[in-house]
């Protein structure tokens, strides 16, 4: 007589230590094995799109920061780029370079948060603090240039709010010199640790075709083996001036596209960003950062869809302007929103502890999902 077992619905509720924000996962589990996951989002919905319709164009920039609050510099970058293409503004060379430097620093900071919290989710708490100690240095760099640590309102439409701080270059060079050995140390401590590999290899495998079909982008797509990076495939700003290679998941420790690949892609991407910053610092030209900022931002009637390579994936801005001072529609295509869609697919058949591992490796931010 077979043992009568029942499924249990476990609520990994909005307040849970490892859901990276207010996300409610309804897990149907049989014992420890997951049968189905139903994500419920919307707990952090702050109506960004409704606000944007009531604001003038420059006033929207502080709101874009609050969407993906871990990579707000890149949100502004995407928005400013979309507006400049809409209004056909030519931005001075120095502004482009500073934006690339700030964007790449923000990518390293955002990846450090992703790697640190991922280590903490799996159980190792020390790498979390090592990552945050290094991230603190980047936040200090941002603080001396624009005054804020997390939500910058630094990249404006047509330029920047402040020029670089006099000793920004020196501090960045010091940071790069100290950061490289730290990345190696993080690898020793976590990446190649047998238990960490045991917990992440062959877990939550994302095949390439489902990834493209779902529109997944960024590190999660590259971890599945596809060489797709918007900085190279849909070039914007001055990224074409630097040489860096795009790391692609190769299934070192398990199948390609598993949690370990998604984790290790971010580690290698940090090293690539370091290279970009070094080259950008050498070639940075002189110039006035506020010369191309329009007095009154009044774009012609029209619409534009621009996308940038946010640390979490492809961040797209679809802006429709009806010629007045306020936009008639700003739609944001958030990478975490699309990644969250594929999350139930990744979790089926794994255990409760793996849900946490997969959620950490996919690196979502709820501010961006709920907008």
């Amino acid at each position, binding site marked *: 007589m077979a043992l009568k077992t029942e499924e249990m619905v476990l609520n990994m509720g909005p307040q849970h230590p490892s859901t990276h924000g207010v996300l409610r996962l309804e897990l149907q589990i049989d014992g420890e094995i997951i049968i189905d996951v139903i994500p419920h989002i919307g707990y952090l919905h702050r109506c960004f799109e409704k606000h944007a319709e009531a*604001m003038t164009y*420059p*006033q*929207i*920039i*502080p*709101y874009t920061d609050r969407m993906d609050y871990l990579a707000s510099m890149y949100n502004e970058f995407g928005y400013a780029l979309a507006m400049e293409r809409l209004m056909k503004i030519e931005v001075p060379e120095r502004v482009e370079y500073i934006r690339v430097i700030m964007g790449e620093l923000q990518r390293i900071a955002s990846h450090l948060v992703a790697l640190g919290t991922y280590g903490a989710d799996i159980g190792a708490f*020390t790498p979390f603090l090592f990552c945050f*100690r290094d991230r*603190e240095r980047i936040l200090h760099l941002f*603080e*001396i*240039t*624009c*005054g*804020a640590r997390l*939500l910058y*309102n630094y990249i404006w439409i047509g330029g920047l*709010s*402040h020029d670089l*701080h006099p000793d920004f270059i020196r501090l960045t060079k010091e940071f790069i010199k100290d950061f490289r050995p730290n990345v190696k*140390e993080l690898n*020793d*401590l*976590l990446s*190649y*640790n*047998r*238990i960490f590999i045991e917990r992440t290899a062959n877990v939550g495998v994302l095949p390439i075709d489902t990834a493209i079909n779902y529109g997944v982008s960024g590190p999660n797509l590259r971890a599945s083996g596809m060489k797709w990076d918007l900085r190279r495939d849909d070039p914007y700003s001055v990224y074409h001036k630097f040489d860096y290679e795009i790391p692609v998941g190769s299934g070192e420790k398990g199948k390609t596209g598993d949690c370990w690949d998604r984790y290790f892609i971010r580690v290698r991407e940090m090293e690539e960003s370091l290279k970009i910053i070094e080259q950008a610092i050498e070639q940075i030209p002189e110039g006035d950062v506020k010369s191309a900022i329009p007095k009154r931002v009044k774009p012609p009637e029209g619409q534009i869809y621009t996308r940038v390579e946010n640390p979490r994936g492809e961040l797209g801005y679809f802006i429709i302007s009806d010629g007045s001072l306020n936009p008639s529609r700003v739609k944001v295509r958030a990478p975490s929103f699309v990644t969250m869609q594929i999350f139930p697919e990744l979790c089926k058949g794994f255990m409760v502890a793996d849900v946490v591992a997969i959620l950490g490796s996919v690196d979502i931010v709820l501010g961006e999902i709920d907008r």
Partner: protein
Amino acid sequence: MKDYIVNFWQGLFTILIGMKVTFKHLFVPAVTIQYPSVKPQLPERERNRLYVNMDDCIGCDQCARACPVNCIEIETVKSVPGDDLGTTSNGKKKALWVTTFNIDFAKCCYCQLCVFPCPTECIYMTDVYEFSEFSRENLLYDFVTLLPEERIQKKKNFEEMQAKKEAEKAEAAKKAAEAKVAAQKEKPEVKPNDTSSENKEENK
């Protein structure tokens, strides 16, 4: 069988490497500071609490318009000609009495959009970050330097001046009307026949 041994050995070896890393960090000096006793040294472009230097403020409302969350509330009263409002630091003559200038720091998002458009640079961000309150109402800062009675007094002056101007305008209008009527009277001696327009004006 081979990967069984390799698995075990690799497990042991990576654990020892990990332990070497953490042991090395036992002797690395701490990076944290003891906050209340050791205050962090903030850079000069720090963006924390706003400060408005009221003698430079000419009440132009630029900052209130630039604020994305409308947390600045300004009310100005025109000055009576006799008043002396003083001049701003860069020598511009002030023309408006600013009777209310509130910034609600509970709503402010510290984005510094208000600092850039200010013509006299009287609103800027200081590096004071320890200003939390127990109740949200205390975060509503009032920057006006006039006493409450002075504000009412300024409003009253303006109303009186307004009333006086109305009165003058009314008299001027009446005088103009009489002048027109008087002009009308000299014209009829010249043309006795248009009596109908005359009594129309009289009963106006």
